[in-house]
């Protein structure tokens, strides 16, 4: 039963992480670098939700949509203003990560300068506590899980069954060939960054409503998002989902058995293990 508990709790807790991992992987796959500034897509998603839910008084479920879309728009702006020019200048993958740290700092501390460093809270819709086979969950968590599954399914369908997905895979695998066959890299990239930003924003909205909205919320999960993406391997959205779910379950399992901190240590050590054994040797 411990395992079932762990799976259930893991899935619930992992739902925002799964969304974040999907968005992060999309960018990693398309452009080949780890975008640490993606953390701010998550954070800004939550803050946009504050804007709509608290400042403008919209109901939470309705506020989700514009929050997500604005997060996507922000992602596109950052791509067009900074990351695309940098890629065009030939900045290498390691330097791109450093650049993304700079962008992350700009966005996060700019946000703090604008709205202050205090935690904020979203207006949760009425919470109903439900029971499943002796395990408890709130309706909010279940809706989050449902949305995640919906988003994951939609994303999966998009990548493997639509023209956009084909274009993205084409660009990621062989840019010159893709462009030669008529794929417009600019439009495809903008679309992908928009979708990734939306995924991050949605992740942030739910993280915010489960706990609180704080400037560091995205930054706090970016490490584990990175882990999950790397474990999944570049370009596998499938893999990212699986890895996120596995991370959530493993984390929940270890937390139930020992101290929560050990969960982190085990995950991180497993992460280093994966890095050690996968990938090509350089000489």
């Amino acid at each position: 039963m411990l395992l079932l508990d762990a799976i259930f709790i893991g899935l619930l807790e992992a739902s925002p992480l799964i969304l974040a991992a999907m968005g992060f992987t999309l960018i990693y796959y398309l452009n080949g670098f780890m975008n640490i500034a993606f953390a701010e897509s998550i954070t800004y998603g939550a803050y946009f939700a504050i804007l709509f839910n608290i400042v403008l008084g919209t109901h939470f479920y309705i506020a989700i949509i514009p929050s997500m879309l604005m997060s996507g728009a922000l992602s596109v702006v950052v791509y067009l203003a900074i990351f695309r020019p940098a890629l065009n200048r030939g900045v290498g993958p390691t330097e791109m990560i450093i650049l993304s740290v700079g962008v992350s700092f700009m966005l996060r501390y700019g946000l703090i300068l604008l709205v202050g460093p205090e935690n904020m809270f979203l207006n949760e819709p009425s919470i109903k506590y439900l029971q499943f086979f002796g395990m408890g969950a709130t309706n909010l968590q279940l809706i989050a899980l449902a949305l995640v599954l919906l988003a994951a399914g939609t994303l999966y369908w998009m990548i493997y069954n639509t023209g956009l997905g084909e274009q993205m895979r084409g660009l990621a695998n062989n840019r010159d060939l893709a462009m030669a066959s008529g794929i417009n890299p600019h439009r495809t990239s903008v679309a992908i960054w928009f979708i990734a930003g939306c995924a991050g924003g949605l992740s942030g909205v739910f993280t915010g409503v489960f706990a609180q909205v704080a400037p560091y919320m995205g930054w706090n999960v970016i490490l584990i998002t990175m882990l999950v993406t790397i474990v999944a391997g570049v370009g596998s959205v499938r893999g990212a989902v699986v890895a996120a779910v596995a991370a959530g379950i493993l984390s929940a399992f270890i937390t139930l058995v020992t101290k929560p901190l050990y969960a982190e240590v085990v995950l991180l050590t497993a992460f280093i293990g994966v890095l050690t054994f996968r990938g090509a040797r350089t000489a």
Partner: protein
Amino acid sequence: MDYLIFSISLMLVYIGLAQLLHIQFGLAGIPNFGVVGFWGLGLYGTGVLYVKLALPLLPSIVMASLLAAVVAYVVAHLVLQRSGQAILAATLALAAIISTLVVSEKDITGGVQGLGTIRFPFSDLDQSNLIFMIMLLVVVCTLLWISGKLRDSRLGRQLVAIRDNEELAASLGKDTAASKRWVFAITCGLMGVLGGMSAPLHQFLVPYQLAPSLTFAVWIALVLGGKGHNLGAIVGVFVTFGLFDILIETYAPVPAEQAILLPNFKLFCYGVLLVMIIMFRPLGILGVDKPRVRAVPKPVPGGHSKPSVEEVEP
């Protein structure tokens, strides 16, 4: 005055760390995002040995640094032959492991309650903080000198070759994996030394000091100053820590309500500077510096030539 001595001491630690990162990344091409982890092993290692086992400061620092070096050597075996991104992620993860363990193993480290107090050597003297600052200055100057020697040496040239094209270097007989491992282990051990020396500076250790912000501050300083230049670390730390943490925070006349926001403004500026540098001047303020080598004169028939210092310009 005491606060200035404290600030300068902190700045010296940052310069030392950035200099070591210059060797790791600027020369050898190893992107170490776990700087705070190795520094932290030195910091907490020293703290635990000093406070819990009542060892004197110097042996504590030495043993803690050895621990940092050993951990670095193991990590090097695991990930240094993988891609740059993998090394970045693995070192980042390692630093997170270390800071998490410091919190969880509170019987040894004091956990979130903290660990203290670590005093300066010669603590009965009035000027012990000044003396310590001078000791730090000596250590950092030695690091700078060694770094320069490295740049001008055959080992330095091998590291640059490895950074540029590791496979090619290996095909010419260089054991690139071993060179990288040893350089990484020793420089991380030295980061541990700086960590150990930071223990009496902070006096009271808390896990919060092991947050990744230290790693990022060092990276930003180095990238700004010039990752490939021997003096890039100094310039970078002066322009970030020196300018913001010392000059502006201490001396700029800012009203109290806005003063709280100052650290955030500083970090915002760091972000902007980092983006600018990578986009427009990736080699940093100082650019690249070339090895200074005594040139052997080309034999001229019947003539005399004096050896001259060859500084090759591109």
